[in-house]
């Protein structure tokens, strides 16, 4: 049991080489190699869109590679489905737990592979295995009979891990496991991971929080633009060096030089807090200014945006619009104040899938569709829609097309158009170019520039490093629900990433 150190460096548990994956002409992975030794924690890092999740999906059997090979314990194997992957002992714990909230912890762990005695489920045998599993993932044995819906998110994640282990895990993939956890919960998670690797399980650990890698990872592989750049023992690197490798030598396009015609302060937050999400955030946005709010997943930046928009009431501090304190109960009252928001998740929060483009553009400002209150004039609707289709260069044969038939970039422009129908005083954009191709991304950035130069105050919440540097006049970095640092646009990507990922001066040595 204690020969793990010896095993490290011999035959890799799993080895991917020369992986290529294309989605409809876009290369998600150009060339990726990954070799994971038994009993180690192998971190996989890279910016959004670098290809991490695609690579993981290929290993988990959820996607099939176009080219490349896979070896398991030195033997060539083929993974064409999730069943193949499970058969090899490759288990994945996704960010969103796939659990049954009404069933007990024990049942969640064993569902679909119940141990049986006759037609009965063998509760005693399951209980025995549960005991050791719960022990391994650091949960109290008493929790086995609790209903999963009653547990905290962190406990649910531990249950997900237990579920993965019950299926004989030899490779455990953890996708951003720490994003939703508090610091104390992360400590528990790390203890679990250490216990697992001690028994020879290989862990592939994906995270944006670079600082924590030094506490848990043995080896790190860095991806950039669909390629694996390098694989190094973690001890050879610092947070800053990893950030540099992630970003590469590419210079971020600076903000096209701005004639800063700053107006009055439109939005001001004074020590605003939302329990469990962010605390004591103070910032302001002026007319004609673009402020970038940069934060990684789980940083609280998204919640700051939705609180400004009235989706939830802050639990502390206050918010001023044009110098006047306001309490927003719901988005409609935010819109009355001229605050509009482009939500992050287009399909869930933004688009009305089988409705027309015209419907999607005008739905937020129905009162503009006729001079008579409560009335809708088709012509007004059509004119507004056509106007924005032209202004934002939306590619579509007609405004009557359903939005579901459009590409990501065009659909995003339609949802963006909705926020512009009634000229906003403050426009909040959350991940404005997520899932959008490069061309449309540049167009959307130009639209944002134009809006600001027309005097709109813009707050862009993003986890895209290139984007925040490309469009912001000022960059505010959010980490763990607090403002970590404020940068000017001449900051480097490395500085920003390091601030967001948790470089705390001089405390980078591995534990």
């Amino acid at each position, binding site marked *: 049991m204690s020969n793990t150190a010896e095993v490290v460096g011999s035959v890799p548990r799993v080895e991917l080489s020369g992986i290529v994956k294309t989605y409809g002409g876009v290369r998600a992975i150009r060339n990726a190699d990954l070799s994971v030794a038994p009993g180690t924690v192998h971190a996989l890092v890279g910016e959004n869109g670098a290809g991490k999740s695609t690579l993981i999906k290929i290993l988990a059997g959820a996607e099939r590679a176009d080219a490349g090979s896979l070896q398991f314990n030195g033997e060539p194997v083929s993974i064409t489905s999730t069943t193949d992957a499970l058969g090899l002992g490759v288990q994945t714990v996704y960010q969103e737990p796939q659990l*049954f*909230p*009404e069933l007990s912890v024990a*049942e969640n762990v064993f*569902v679909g592979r119940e141990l*049986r005695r006759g037609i009965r489920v063998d509760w005693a045998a399951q209980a*025995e295995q549960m*005991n*050791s599993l719960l022990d391994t993932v650091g949960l109290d*044995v008493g929790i086995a009979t609790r209903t999963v819906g009653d547990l905290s998110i962190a406990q649910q994640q531990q249950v997900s891990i237990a579920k993965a282990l019950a299926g004989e895990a030899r490779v455990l993939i953890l996708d951003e496991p720490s994003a939703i956890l508090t610091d104390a919960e992360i400590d528990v998670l790390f203890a679990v991971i250490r216990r697992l690797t001690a028994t020879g399980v290989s862990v592939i650990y994906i995270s944006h929080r670079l600082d924590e890698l030094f506490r848990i990872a043995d080896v790190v592989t860095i991806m950039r633009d669909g390629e694996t750049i390098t694989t190094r023992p973690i001890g050879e690197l610092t947070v800053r060096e990893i950030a540099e490798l992630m970003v590469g030598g590419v210079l971020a396009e600076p903000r096209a030089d701005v004639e800063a015609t700053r107006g009055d302060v439109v939005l001001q937050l004074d020590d605003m807090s939302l329990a469990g999400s962010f605390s004591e955030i103070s910032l302001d946005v002026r007319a004609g200014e673009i402020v970038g709010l940069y934060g990684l997943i789980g940083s609280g930046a998204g919640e700051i945006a939705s609180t400004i928009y009235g989706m939830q009431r802050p639990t502390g501090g206050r918010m001023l619009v044009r110098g006047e304190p306001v309490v927003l109960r719901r988005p409609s009252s935010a819109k009355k104040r001229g605050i509009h928001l482009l939500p992050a998740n287009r399909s869930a929060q933004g688009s009305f899938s089988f409705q027309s483009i015209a419907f999607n553009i005008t739905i937020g400002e129905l009162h503009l569709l006729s001079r008579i209150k409560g009335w809708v004039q088709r012509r007004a609707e059509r004119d507004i829609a056509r106007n924005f289709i032209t202004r934002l260069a939306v590619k579509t044969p007609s405004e009557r097309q359903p939005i579901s038939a459009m590409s990501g970039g065009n659909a995003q422009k339609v949802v963006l158009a909705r926020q512009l129908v009634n000229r906003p005083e403050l426009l909040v954009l959350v991940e404005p170019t997520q899932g959008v191709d490069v061309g449309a991304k540049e167009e959307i950035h130009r639209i944002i520039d134009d809006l600001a130069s027309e005097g709109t105050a813009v707050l862009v919440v993003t986890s895209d490093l290139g984007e925040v540097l490309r469009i912001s006049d000022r960059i505010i970095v959010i980490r763990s629900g607090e403002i970590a640092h404020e940068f000017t646009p001449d900051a480097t990507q490395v500085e920003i990433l390091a601030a967001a990922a948790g470089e705390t001066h001089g405390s980078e040595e591995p534990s």
Partner: protein
Amino acid sequence: MTAVAHERASKPIVKRILPPPVTGQELVLVGVIAVLWVLLGIFTPSFLSPSSIQPLLVSVAPIALIGVGMTFIIITAGIDVSVGGAIALCAVVTAKLLVNYDVPLIVAVLVSMVLGTVLGLINGTLIAYGRVHAIIITFGTANIFQFFALRVFGSSTVNGIPSTLDVFGRGESGRTLGVPHSFAITILVVLIAWWYLRNTAGGRHLFAIGGNENAARLAGVKVQPRVVFAYVATGALVGLGACFFIAAGTSTLDQGVGAGRELAVIAAVVIGGTSILGGRGSVIGTLLGAILVQTVNSGVTQLGWPSQLANLFVGIFIIIAVGTDLLRERARRSRA
């Protein structure tokens, strides 16, 4: 792989890893029923006599019996509003067999159950494999079943049903030691179903499907056959329940035998604490729900109130039962 566990094996092994066998909601229902019975006993002294309780139990039997199947279905997040039509068809076929063809009782009951099974299979297959919303499909099949039932009826009633069915009836021949046979059979079925839902993989999978169908599929649960099973089981119980309905009545069966029964069954299931959204439910709750509904029906009559007032109480009970559940759920979510 379990080295770590062994080294800490001093902790006690979990013996029972299921939720408790009886839920809080069921205890509350028992309490409500007890209070109602005591109150009714005070205001109409005859209520607690065997001659009042026995017919009550006979009327509970078919609702609770079919409710067991409906509980399975609703646990999978489905619904079956065709049971009224299915009851009518099974009942009339059984009655005709007994009256016109003189078949032995056991054969008639078996034919009824097989027929019910076939009807359930039709529903289940359309729903599981046609991927169509259960309520719409079963609204459709309800009409179709009703059509066939009316064809078999021919005239408006079936008369002269022989007394062999009295073994499930409300008379003396329908009881042993004072317990109505139909109710005893229902209790037996409830216990088997309770055991099945608790202790077998198939039973637990019904909960998994209703809780998160996609996750269940990913976990290797064979979703479609399990769903079909829930509808088939309901069909078979409808077949037996139809016999109970005939026996609970007179020697004449009329066309209205199934009308509105689907809603009565669903009401019993919902009052019993089964979530219409799927993933949670219990057959014991359904039995208690059926007893509560029939107690209200019987009590209203015995108090000399307009009998139709009973439905008002049923509606209110549904709102209270589901409403408290919603509030509890909301409290739970805000805690998490």
